[in-house]
């Protein structure tokens, strides 16, 4: 199984695979027994690495493949796979992370991605119905809180001198998100400007 398939499976399990690619993946898995077994092994390893009892995304994948080939015994193929010995954890965790990060959304607003709650079985049905919706592109209320935390974390590590280049760039993008948010607020103020001039006066331009 090549890395591309692994990444697609990871993306599916994380609810981040676009619908068209998900259909393609399901078609390949439903037509290739060897690939299904390899996918099951791969999921079992990821399963062990994450230390979780179940992965709703994996359950969804299994159910959809089973539906595609009309074979409920597929459950046994997936369930029969034992997690690998723990000694594999170190090298495999890297791949798992890389695959997850590789599937993170594009920078800008889309960079801020919420990973589905893998422990919450209630999320399973929602994943199956609308995979793409799991990667939120516009920060909602909960995301704003996390965003604040990321910003504060970045500011603090700069203060303490423990920052690094990559964090700096992440913060650079965070600020971009902040800017967009501010400007959107400003546009809303613009819309109300006709009725309340005083409250919409922009601050005085500071000297550079």
């Amino acid at each position, binding site marked *: 199984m090549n890395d591309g398939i692994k990444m697609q499976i990871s993306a599916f399990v994380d609810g981040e695979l676009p619908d068209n690619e998900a259909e393609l993946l399901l078609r390949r898995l439903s037509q290739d027994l060897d690939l299904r077994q390899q996918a099951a092994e791969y999921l079992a390893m990821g399963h062990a*690495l994450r230390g979780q009892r179940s992965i709703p995304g994996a359950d969804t994948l299994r159910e959809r493949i089973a539906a595609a080939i009309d074979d409920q015994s597929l459950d046994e193929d997936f369930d029969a796979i034992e997690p690998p010995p723990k000694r594999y954890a*170190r*090298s495999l*965790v*890297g*791949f798992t*992370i*890389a695959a*997850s*990060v*590789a*599937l*993170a959304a*594009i*920078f800008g607003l889309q*960079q*801020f*991605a919420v*990973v*589905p709650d893998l422990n*919450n079985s209630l999320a399973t049905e929602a994943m199956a119905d609308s995979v793409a919706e799991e990667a939120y592109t516009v920060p909602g*209320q*909960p995301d*704003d*809180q*996390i965003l*604040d*935390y*990321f910003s*504060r*974390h970045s*500011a*603090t*590590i*700069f*203060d*303490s*001198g*423990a*920052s*690094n*280049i*990559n964090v*700096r*760039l*992440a913060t*650079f*993008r965070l*600020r*971009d998100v*902040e*800017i*967009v948010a*501010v*400007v959107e607020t*400003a546009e809303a103020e613009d819309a109300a400007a006709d009725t309340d001039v005083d409250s919409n006066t*922009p*601050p*005085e331009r500071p000297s*550079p």
Partner: protein
Amino acid sequence: MVRANLMKIRRRFLIATASVVCSGLAIVAPVALAQEMGPSDWLRKMASAVQTTNYEGTVIRIQNGTAEALKVVHIVSDGVVREKVVVQDGNGLEIIRNGNEVHCILPDKKSVLVGEWNDQSTLFSTLPSSDIRFGVEYDVSIVRKDRVAGRKTVMLAIRPHDSYRYGHRIWLDIKTGFPLQTKLIDANGEPIEQVKFADISINQDISLTALAPSYDTDDFRWYDQPERDVIRAVETDWSCSNLPPGFRVISTQESTFPGAAELVTHILYSDGLASVSIFIAPDTGKKIAERSRVGASSSFSIVIEDHVVTAVGEVPAATVEQIARSMQSN
């Protein structure tokens, strides 16, 4: 006989000259310099270079197959950093820095956000901190000589001993020590994120006009960045019972966040290179994402003892999860 002696003298002179030239090269040649300096020497040189080097160039940032380009001009004069960063893709964001004051220009929004950043550079800060525990949590080594942006570089590897943190690869300009390329590496050796100069001019004369905004911002709307909330150092009863090796408390603060009245305790852990923040807020019942990512950073949130505990850091997701789950109040 005389001719033979002359030949001998001439040969000796040539050999002697060649020796002098070669020994001179051995002293000044960058290659030899790279061999003489140890990894720590290079990191010290880099730390100095990042704070003092004037440069102008194009930076490429690559993450998982997605690349973006930034034009950068950076001048340090009289200890004041002046800088211009222009994003070449998307909305064309420009960041103009004059000391700590930063103007973020969004041409598509005809807006300017004024903020204050207290670090030295938009792109680079001192990496890594001097107290990084090399040999304990990380090994640092010189890997090889290489070439980046047309310049000779020495490549350093900072390799973690476990999977709790990421590794780094840094390509330093042999002449100046300036970092021309960096990579963040996961436990499997795969690059998570990399930043590299495609072209760069170092310590050349850079006109101050290069720092001017590309847009006439007179008719733009200007916005002040909201003031940061009051933050104060505190002591806390919270601690981590299963902290990954090498991490230790750097600071503990208490503050509020925009739109919320409750005080949030913020504990910063660091191993000298990677850092993780823990935010502890009273559980108000507000839903918060359990796992999330920004770039190479991860977060994990969990409710512990009627508090929402959130770990955030540029470490693998498993690390923030372990730290968050291990928080307890004494």
